[in-house]
């Protein structure tokens, strides 16, 4: 297999993998389709919340209602996002963090804190308090649950400079083609994934649910005999492979045994020591234009 074919295969496998990850968590055909990427994000948020012990998931609709009350009523002192201004940061308030559905936050809103200069909002209804409380719980969630973090626009580079790098200094065209393996890559991948993959195509495979592409290995025994096949295991002591006939072999990697693992990404690894931030961002800006 030529080098460029190998690279293309690696890129194709990566795309297939991303698709599989999305669909594995997608709803059935008759449900309202949530985009796969969105589902993945929700799963990530749920898992992170559970792992961190953050408690229940705030209700987005109620929190949105609360935002409309909180902003004009409370934002002046506490900031529109509740992170504090002339009044305290409410995201780290023990009252907010101990509260569930307004039972602790409510009395503070209704009675105020005259000693600290907070007026009473005695006319606030129970529903309004409940909504404000939910808004604050959502603000806590959005800060504390890193599974909810939203990446902002990462495409800040210069596409022309990226193209020049791709075809020139980066020597990307040695293996890749924008009409071949990378055709429409800007439509197939999110910029965030694209930026990781351009540096190291297997980078995103570490995320949960990911598997790695199969590698080929050649083992040369001390007597010169060669075994070739798909790599099953490799450590400091053993190499295991399945050969073309489906036969499984394990060899102790003692002295005199040579193990050569096919390495499609050696050039990518060598490049890792060479990039500047500008080159990376320019390259991303160029690749996203390949719609």
């Amino acid at each position, binding site marked *: 297999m030529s080098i460029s074919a190998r690279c293309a295969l690696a890129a194709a496998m990566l795309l297939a993998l991303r698709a599989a990850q999305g669909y594995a968590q997608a709803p059935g055909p008759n449900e309202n389709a949530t985009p796969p990427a969105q589902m993945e994000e929700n799963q990530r948020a749920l898992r992170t919340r559970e*792992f961190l012990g953050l408690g229940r998931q705030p209700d987005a609709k109620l929190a949105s209602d609360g935002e409309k009350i909180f902003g004009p009523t409370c934002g002046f002192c506490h900031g529109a996002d509740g992170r504090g201004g002339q009044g305290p940061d409410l995201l*780290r308030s023990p009252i907010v963090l101990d509260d569930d559905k307004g039972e602790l936050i409510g009395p503070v809103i209704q009675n105020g804190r005259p000693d600290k200069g907070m007026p009473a909002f005695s006319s606030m209804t129970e529903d309004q308090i409940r909504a404000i409380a939910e808004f604050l719980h959502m603000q806590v969630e959005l*800060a504390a649950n890193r599974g909810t973090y939203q990446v902002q626009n990462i495409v800040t580079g210069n596409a022309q400079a990226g193209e020049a790098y791709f075809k020139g200094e980066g020597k990307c065209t040695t293996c890749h083609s924008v009409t071949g393996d990378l055709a429409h890559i800007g439509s197939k991948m999110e910029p965030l994934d694209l930026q990781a993959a351009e540096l190291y195509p297997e*980078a995103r495979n570490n995320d949960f649910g990911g598997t790695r592409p199969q590698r080929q290995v050649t083992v040369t025994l001390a007597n010169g005999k060669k075994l070739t096949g798909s790599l099953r295991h490799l450590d400091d002591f053993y190499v295991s492979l399945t050969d073309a006939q489906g036969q499984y072999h394990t060899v102790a990697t003692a002295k005199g045994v040579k193990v050569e693992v096919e390495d499609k990404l050696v050039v990518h690894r060598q490049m890792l020591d060479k990039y500047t931030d500008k080159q990376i961002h320019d390259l991303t800006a160029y690749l996203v234009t390949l719609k």
Partner: protein
Amino acid sequence: MKSRRLMVLSLLVSLQGVSVAQILDPQKLLQAEPTDTWPTYNGDYSGRRFSPLMQIQSSNVSDLALAWMYRVKTSGPVRGGINPDIKSTPLMVNGILYFTVPDHVFAVDARTGHELWHYDWVDKGGHLVGNRGLGMYGDWLYFMPPDGWFVSLDARTGKERWRKKVADEKMQYFTTAAPMVIGHHVLVGVGGDAIDVQGYLEAHDPETGELQWRWNSTPRKGEPGSETWPNAAAMEHGGGMTWLPGTYDKELNLVYWGTGNPNPVMAGQGRKGANLWTCSIVALNPDTGKLVWWFQGSPHDTHDWDNTETPVLFDGAIDGKPRKLLAQAARNGYFFVLDRTNGASVVSKPFVPLNWSKGVDAKGQPIPDEAKEPTVDGSYLTINWGGGTNWMPPSFSPQTGLFYVNGTLGYALVYLTDTSERPEGYGGFGQPLWSQHILEALDYRTGNVKWSHAYTTADGTQGGNSGPGALTTAGNLLFTGDYNGNLIAFNAANGDILWHFPALHSLSNGPETYMLDGQQYLVAGAGDTLYVFKLAPRRP
């Protein structure tokens, strides 16, 4: 009834009066390198994890054989879907091993592996990332469940004596530390980084659990150190968690502790300045909690590189002069050697390639490169996203003069997601690109790599949130493990592999050794199982 109780009480009092033998003589804690006991997280106060035992040595280590295994039987995967790994280093006292996973304490017969008791805590929150183990004072064990409690157990029965609240899990503090006993103090550290909270270290009375002192790892308004924060609000976001045990020099009467990252973790725009005493090594008086000196490993950290890694204590010769030293392989990729009497820098040198710093200042502290802070479009790092190493215990062998650390080479992109003027939480994330685990033996005088071993694997990128610790012995051995489930013994002097054992999971704690009935034992925790080895009897 009442009188009977009084009688029992007075009997107990009189028994205590005549000083009934305690399971662990507190004097034992002051002994360097005990061989019949492993009484603290690190085996002794130095943090060296070096044993003078040499029944097992490089010439016979290949005869090591499994004596028994003990598998933790909890209810399976815990909250968050992770299986509990044994990250604690068991205490071995009087033939019994005491160890933990989050929410659980176990006492197991060190000769047979039979369980003596199991203490089960039902948590109301807290991060289940790990638990580092126990502290012991006389007959009492000290344990920290994840939701901010400090619990004392009777080592004989596993029965709870009392519990004290030391951190609020609703504020997103969590507790994973192994309490550290020094004299009449039990030092307990805290963790937390989901919501921005202030770090601290507390000392409690070993008998009553009452608070003796608290050292805040970030200053309050107007206090020394506050000049390294832009304002009081930023200071209140805090950080500087104290989640790994420290080390102690009894002659200097100083306890050395590493502190974690500042908050918000990756969004540093609201906290311009060095942010003392986060990401630092601090020397405290254990009787008062007063700060004596400090060295900041990562001024103004924005990469989640806690500086909590064990500060290892040993004496050595620098330029021909004897020095009392402290060495740390920090998560930010630097190897630091300090004079532990005053914190003066001896060596500050990267042990893995890195590009986040522009060199070191006059104090030997790295100077962060602002351009390498997380950015919205991704900032490129030539160091592993999780850092050059992590919490896993390193080892120093006075026999070889080498400091052993399991490190990681790697590359990453770091993104900023919270661009607010008042960021909160992590505020960003890291994207690992490629990484490779590597064992390094460092010369403490220069920081130069004497030898290293890159663990062979099917692919360069290896994951897992556990990491293999290290143990050295006078048998010229270094015990550690790879990320493929192998426990490995290296020739400590030159890095040759002498023995390995394929476990069901990669090594997840620091291995330990001790002598029992004239036999040297090796204990390693890998995943949910303890593996215990001794030399197989030789055939005549």
